[in-house]
């Protein structure tokens, strides 16, 4: 072989070696995109969202919400291709998994039932998930939030019947939790139980000036919330709420008993100040938590309030 020919052959081989891998077939792009979204979702399905904040995807959004939006986008962009590739079932199932983590249990159940219908192999798991979602939705149907109650028939002042309602909802959710132990639904149920306890505390805080010994009851309910959900991702928030209650009571106390008046009791005021500032300090000293900022600013504001009180009525 002459030299130029050899050089040409070497060049061809070199170019072939340097060539990048061939472009993928675009017909598989829709399926590839769906697999990518499902992979991201699947990785976060077992996440303990009761103890830890839900993950964020690369867009910085809640990963479950983002999955849902992306799946819907894909249905818009590649609807026909996905149907043709028989991906309806897995897409519906994935939407169910995403919806249940954003508290849309009824829609999640619908998505699971659709998945069961479209894909017989997914049907057993989909039907079971749909049943759990319906149980969660049923428990959630027992409205306990102040807004929901107000929308229905006003916030009831009968504390005993409300307590029974909270207990019933907690019981139903505990049942779901026991039945789903070991699966990701356990975390979902725990989150709902925490919401029920928070709503219960919120009710007693809202009613504390109507019910007998309302302040004591409200503080006890918030303390119960703090104690029962120490491992929750919202544990700091619960402590802040308790601190805010003590702060509100301290402010109300000063309004009702001005420090210069004879009825002002420095010891009682001192107790309220100590409780409030101690709780704020607990949260304010936690590195890396957003509640830290809120707690430290609230503590500053609260100490500024305490400075209004004469020195001979309040030492610190």
């Amino acid at each position, binding site marked *: 072989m002459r030299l130029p020919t050899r050089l040409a052959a070497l060049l061809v081989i070199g170019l072939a070696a340097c060539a990048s891998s061939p472009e*993928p*077939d675009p017909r598989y792009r829709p399926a590839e995109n*769906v*697999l990518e979204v499902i992979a991201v979702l699947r990785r976060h399905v077992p996440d303990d969202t009761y103890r830890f904040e839900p993950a964020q995807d690369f*867009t910085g959004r809640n990963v479950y919400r983002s999955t849902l939006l992306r799946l819907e986008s894909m249905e*818009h962009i590649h609807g026909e291709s996905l149907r043709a590739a*028989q991906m309806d079932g*897995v897409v519906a199932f994935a939407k169910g998994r995403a919806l249940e983590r954003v508290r849309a249990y009824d829609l999640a159940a619908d998505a699971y039932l659709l998945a069961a219908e479209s894909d017989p*192999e997914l049907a057993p798991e989909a039907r079971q998930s749909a049943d759990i979602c319906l149980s969660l939705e049923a428990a959630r149907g027992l409205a306990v939030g102040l807004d929901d109650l107000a929308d229905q028939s006003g916030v009831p002042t009968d504390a005993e019947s409300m307590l029974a309602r909270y207990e019933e909802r907690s019981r139903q959710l505990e049942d779901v939790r026991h039945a789903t132990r070991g699966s990701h639904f356990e975390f979902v149920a725990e989150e709902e139980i925490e919401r029920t306890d928070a709503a219960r505390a919120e009710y007693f805080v809202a009613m504390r000036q109507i019910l007998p010994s309302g302040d004591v009851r409200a503080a006890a309910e918030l303390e119960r919330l703090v104690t029962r959900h120490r491992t929750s991702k919202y544990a700091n928030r619960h402590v802040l709420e308790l601190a805010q209650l003590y702060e509100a009571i301290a402010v109300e106390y000063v309004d009702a008993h001005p420090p210069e008046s004879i009825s002002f009791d420095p010891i009682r005021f001192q107790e309220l100040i100590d409780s409030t500032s101690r709780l704020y300090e607990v949260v304010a000293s936690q590195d890396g938590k957003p509640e830290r900022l809120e707690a430290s600013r609230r503590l500053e504001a609260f100490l500024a309030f305490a400075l209004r009180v004469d*020195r001979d009525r309040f030492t610190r």
Partner: protein
Amino acid sequence: MTVSRAEAIGLALLAALLGGCQTPGGAPPDSAFHPAATYRVPPPDVADQTAVDLARAALVGNEAEAERALRRMNAIETVLDATEEKPTGMLGVSIDLRNAAFADRRSYRRATDTLLDRRDLDPVLRARLEQFQDADPLELADDRARDSLMIEIARAFNAFVEPVGKSLATSQLAPYRLGQSLARYAVHVYTREPISLQRRQALVHWKEFLKRHPDAPEATRVEPEVDTTEQRLVLAHRDRALRVAEKALDLGKTRLALVYSDRALRWVPEDRRATEVRDEAAARLIEIRDAQQRSIQAGTGDPFHGQPEAVRELAVALLLPQGDPTHAARRLREADPKGPLADESRFVDAMLLGEAGETTEMWQQLERLADSDGDASNMQRHAERLFNDPNRNTWQAFADARARNRWDRFKWVLLGPFSDGIPDRGLPGPLEWVFDAPALAEHIGGAPMRLINLPWAKALPSARVTATAARNHLARDPRGPGSDSARAWLERYEKNRGNWIGALRAVEAGPDPDISEMATLRERAAYQYLDAATREPNFALRMGMYKQVGQIYPGSAAARQAGRLARDEADEVTVQAIRLSRGFLEENEEITGPRGLGLRPELLDGNPANAELHPDGVTLVGSQIVRVSFVGPSGDEDDPPERTHEILSDEQLGRVVSLVEEVSYRNMLLDPLDEVGVDAPRDYYFERARLGLAGTTKPRSGEISQYTYQGVRERYGMVRHRESILPFDLVFHGSLSTLSLGAFPRMREPKETPDAFLYR
């Protein structure tokens, strides 16, 4: 080179001719979009089926089935490769999906590391996986720990290299500079907190890792780190609290010292220094209480027993509305001019002067009383308290603040940045001075320059205190003897800082304001208000502020301008405008293509003759309407565009917004500079568009998005700034004041992460 007149005329004519040769813009077409295209969807093949099997297995957590499906996918790719057909492109994501189905969470990380070693990975998938790996708590903790170490190394390195490099031209100063720099570094090492911010971040990440994976093999390495770092954090908290407590004690803020020394003791119980500070603060508090006790203690007997009758007479006169305290006070003084109660009568006289409007005399009398011997006088402390109360003796408070401000300005001229004293490094006093003596001498040398700049210098912080005191005095005594002086000072202060609203307020409140000056100030104040309004980002608030310009300053030029702006913006802003610029559309053909907008290709071919898309591009203006901007008849892109409006079907709009979102987020993943900004109204509109609800309700002003999607080249140009991968900057240094010239490498410290504010 010189150009003759004839040549210049010729050149101008040529330029004009070339300008005239610009191709005129063609008329916009009836529709900018092609009718929706139809597709033939291929029937599912084995690769599609395998993808479904894999997705199904992963979703229900069947690891074995997922593994089988992945093997099938691998075989398909091998066959395609062997037959030289295009790959499916699904292998990488299939492996990731199989990995995601692993029950053990840490296994996923290890499998992802292996996956990232593949060279045929799709760049989008690679970027996503790398992002995930980087967000692992253990990875983050190690990164922060490394940052902490790098910061210390950089500081030590710079402390040595910088003085040497600065002394290249003045080498005789090198030993001095080096000594000073190393001494500074030693001080930094001595006074720094026991734990750095980055180490605190690492601690949080380590703890999170342990919480999430208590049984992971890495836990044995992490646990001792957590223990050590936590101990240092406790010491840092103790030090911080103790520092505040000590400073508070020095400043006489006893209660604060008590609170913070208690806090330090909560972090480290039985800490010796904290206990000392707490005990000292407690002892001082007891002293304060004793002093307070003197004011509230009362005897048990008759308070008038053994006192002259005039005492009782004065008490009664002060309490009863028809009493004559002037007469009673005089009688008391005459009864015993040198007696222990004489100062009571002088105090009463002062009060009566104040009630009669003789405030200047009243304060003079109280000042004399305040200066008397506190042990011999009952009323001295009351007079002192009153005289020094800035809310009552407002004139004195203003005069004191003004004097302090003058003194501060004098110090600033003389000492420059050292006018507030030397920086507190937590060292013993004389040592602090030793460190700063050379710099202080240098700054004293700059005093003449500062004196020249004085009229234009920014107001010192004490000027704000003086302004507050002036306002307080004017509010309490607007027509009093010192009011003109306070008003003149305030007016000058506000004018100097360009606060025409404040200056107008001061002038208006005067007894005899200059009408022409008021008119000028009013115009300026109105423009100041308008300027603030135009900078307000919230539309509703901005409109309210425009309205207020007209209400507060009616008839002013700024009020007319505010009216015009309000009308224009109301027309413009009440319409949504999510803009897809031409640059963005050119860079993302999927959106302009038949599956997206279906934009006619000739609109992007660069030929204005057949109509061309204007750089403004296509705008989603709400409901299902899009506004298309074309280059105008002049063919010049800089001219205002010619606009047409078209309606998209629900289905097409849903597809377009889906594509815009998918494509823009994918671009962001590949190129961090191609960031998608946060805009809740945009996302809300997109969500509704996907559901086919975009046209059902008219959005309120707060729900209107004006987001713009821009191309990367449009944003950053052809060449983008990239940060050097080397950890050094080369610094060239020259100083006229020290006559030095030098060059040296400065080691860059790692940047703080965006969440650093949660650790301060």
